[in-house]
């Protein structure tokens, strides 16, 4: 079996690993590092449950190869325990019933955080499109959309919103 040595940064820590070239980043994180917040819903890049950040950009962990993360920064939901925006999202998801079974939730949260930080949606319709790569089978999206809107408002209304770092 061919293996490749890789070095990357995962949730702020340097990691060295020997992986099969075919192994997905999501499988490596889950099986190699026991980081199980990254869920696998389809393993072909459609459902978005495995959304994680690669150099700060949301990607599908299931169709990104671990070897493609060589020298790069990977962040999973486990990196955001103390993140102020993520905590606003958590509170909003709970208040607005943005989750039921919880399986799609980690991917939703990472995508929602990126949507708010990038400030790329101005309307409800745009928010729906921005979220269209993350499938939820339980909620019908109503609570998720309300939660993201509420968190976005709270984030924009925070003190020093105009100058504060993300």
């Amino acid at each position, binding site marked *: 079996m061919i293996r490749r040595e890789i070095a990357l940064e995962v949730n702020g820590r340097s990691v060295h690993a020997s992986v099969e070239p075919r192994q997905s980043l999501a499988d490596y994180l889950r099986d190699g590092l026991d980081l*199980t917040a*990254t*869920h696998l819903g389809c393993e072909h890049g459609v459902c978005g449950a495995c959304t994680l950040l690669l150099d700060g950009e949301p990607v599908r962990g299931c169709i990104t190869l671990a070897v493609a993360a060589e020298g790069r920064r990977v962040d999973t939901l486990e990196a955001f325990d103390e993140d102020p925006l993520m905590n606003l999202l958590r509170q909003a998801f*709970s208040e607005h019933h943005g989750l039921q*079974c919880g399986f799609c939730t980690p991917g939703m949260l990472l995508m929602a955080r990126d949507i708010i930080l990038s400030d790329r949606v101005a309307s409800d319709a745009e928010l729906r499109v921005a979220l*269209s790569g993350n499938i939820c089978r339980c909620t019908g*999206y*109503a609570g998720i959309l309300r939660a993201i809107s509420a968190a976005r408002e709270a984030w924009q209304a925070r003190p020093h919103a105009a100058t504060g770092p993300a």
Partner: protein
Amino acid sequence: MGGEGSGFGIGDAVRRKEDRRHLFGRGQFTADLRIPRLQEVAFLRSPIAHGRIRAIHVPEGLRDRVVLAGDLRGARSIRAVTDAPGFNAADFPLLASDKVLFVGQPVAMCLAPSRAEAEDIAQAIDLEIDELPAVVDMEAAVRPDAPLLHEGWGRNVFLTREFEAGDLERARAEAAVTIERTYRLNRQAGVSMEGRAILAHWDDRLDELVVWNSTQMPHQVRYALALHLDLDEHRIRVVAPDVGGGFGLKNIVYPEEIAVAALAAQVRQPLRWIEDRREHFLASIHCRETLYNVTAFATAEGRLLGVDVTVQVDAGAYATWPNGPNMELGMAIKNVPGPYRLEAYRARGWTAATNKAPIGPYRGVARPGACFCIERTIDEIARAVGREPHEVRMENMVRPDQMPYRSLTNMLYDNGDYAESVRIAADLVDVASVRARQAQGEADGRLIGVGFAAYTEQTAHGCGEWITRGVPIIPGYESCTARLMSDGSLQLLVGIQSHGQGLETTLAQVAHHELGVPFERISVRHGDSALSPFGMGTFASRSMVMAGGAVARASRMLAARIRPIAAQLLQCTPDAITLRDGAAHGPQGSVDFAEIGRVAYVRQEGLPRDAAPTLDVTATYSPEIDTGVFCYSTHAAVVAVDPGTGTVEILDYAVVEDCGTIVNPMIVDGQIVGGVAQGIGNALYEEIPYDTSGQPLATTLADYLLPGAPAIPGIKIAHMCTPAEHTEYGMKGMGEGGAISPPAAIANALRDALADTGAELCETPMTPRRVLAAILAAESRIHAREAAE
């Protein structure tokens, strides 16, 4: 009551206890479990729909990594036998060794340290199958010349049913209007975001098999494993950890699960199988595939006189455990009359076996089809007599003064005002303004329409109802152990399973309401057969009524034990004690639950002479009637359709619903919207077509479309509240209902939008291709008529 006014009792939108772990990515799904020496399982599956296995060549050196049917010891094939008259039973082998009957049927298990390596092994096996003609179409399947799936059956039919009540010939004779239609709901899948999953290992210390299983019914799985393996039930523990959605498809025990559990017990090796998405589409149960041929008779005013219906169900190849394909047909026949007064009804039908994946229960079970059948038909009657469909609907519905109303099919509608739900729904979507907008026309050339669909949903039905369905397991009760701890905190151990319904929260609300133990000091434990008393699980819109009832009863039993202890400590009589705010209050003072718990467990010298130590009670609960309590609802949809492309947009959607007393309105509304979203998928997107050789044509999320956020509009919800008379607090079940009406409401809205063309949508999903085909068919009918004139 102890919890009134606290904000955490019955009727309060309490935030869920289960949210925190998921929001931090610390949910514990079966694939997240870690256990030493674990081997992953990949199944080799049949690529052929119908054939005879000639040989299975396992490469030299891999034989000890591959398990074939003959290698499994002490494990029996699944044989779901129901009491339905004339039911044809057939073994569903754990691993096929002789014939294969559908694409995706498990043939071999391959074991390796990682799933990827296990799949490599599966790929290296050479499976030789002599192909037989595949039976793919349910109508062709029952013809005498069709190849037989199960030799010895005579015909590819699992069961037939017939029902007749009232005078249909009189209805036919009196009818001013006769409507004949064929409706088809195509095959789809349940698609929980987490697929099926099982991890099984032998615990040497306890000398028992431990099975972690993504299931809606851990106790039933334990029962099923004892039935299918050579193991006493006391040596089996089944745990459902976090379960990523179920919707019915995890209310089944499948061959893969029994095979993994059997092998783990046999080889004493921890094994895990995690279903991937393709396997889900191939071999988890499918659903919905039914064909209705209906003739309805009505007066010139639109009064429904009689309905004559033939129902055909395509059940796929095998019967799964416990209920097989038994329920679809019976429930379809029972539910076609819906919320309407009907005096003559004849129904007959059969459930065909085909070379496709087995069908099973999926949210709504049969009722989306039954609703489609009657609700599309009511609209056609209204059009034939030139009236507004929602008004014809209201006039035909069972009236409040007729309640309780026994339907022709022997369902006891307990209470409510069905017509009022239609009226409110019509207000919510503002029918008058839709009509005005239609008269004006759309600038973009699209056509607008409004449609309605109502249903009445039997929920939380008990023993007697299940017996009429002929099922082998009667889920007529639920159970709860309530345990006030030595520090005054409370544990509730329940036999249901919660996989998104929020029962860790709502059951705690019930106990808080009864006992006044602070909400945050109550924990609900479910999903573990070793912890809780036997319970049936979460399905059939039953858990809040059934388990909520068990929690209420157990809480009251606990209160009856607490009062004498408190009375002793407070020097008063037990009936002078009230329980609230985490304490027992007497005329002269109070004692908190921590002190009562301390006395009951570790300072029993403080107990009254005749009081037993500990505070730990178990209750079971069944509603007072076993015919169920009926939640009802009317959905109204406003759609825009592009007659050039056939694309449909939902402009407005309203749900008016009566589920009796609501425990947590946030969760109830979440269930409604989630159900509607699945119903919209059913209506517009989701389908697994098969080709003529029995190959499924949608096995990825690229070919099987699930509704994303842009596809689901904001849903308006209005509640009516008619408390049930036969359940605790007046609760009715409601979990499935949202998924029942959308196909019919949207089809009726399309019918309305396309009224000028005469096009009708009589088949789900209503894809752009089907919408265009309906328009073209209507046009060609018009042309043919013109040519004839």
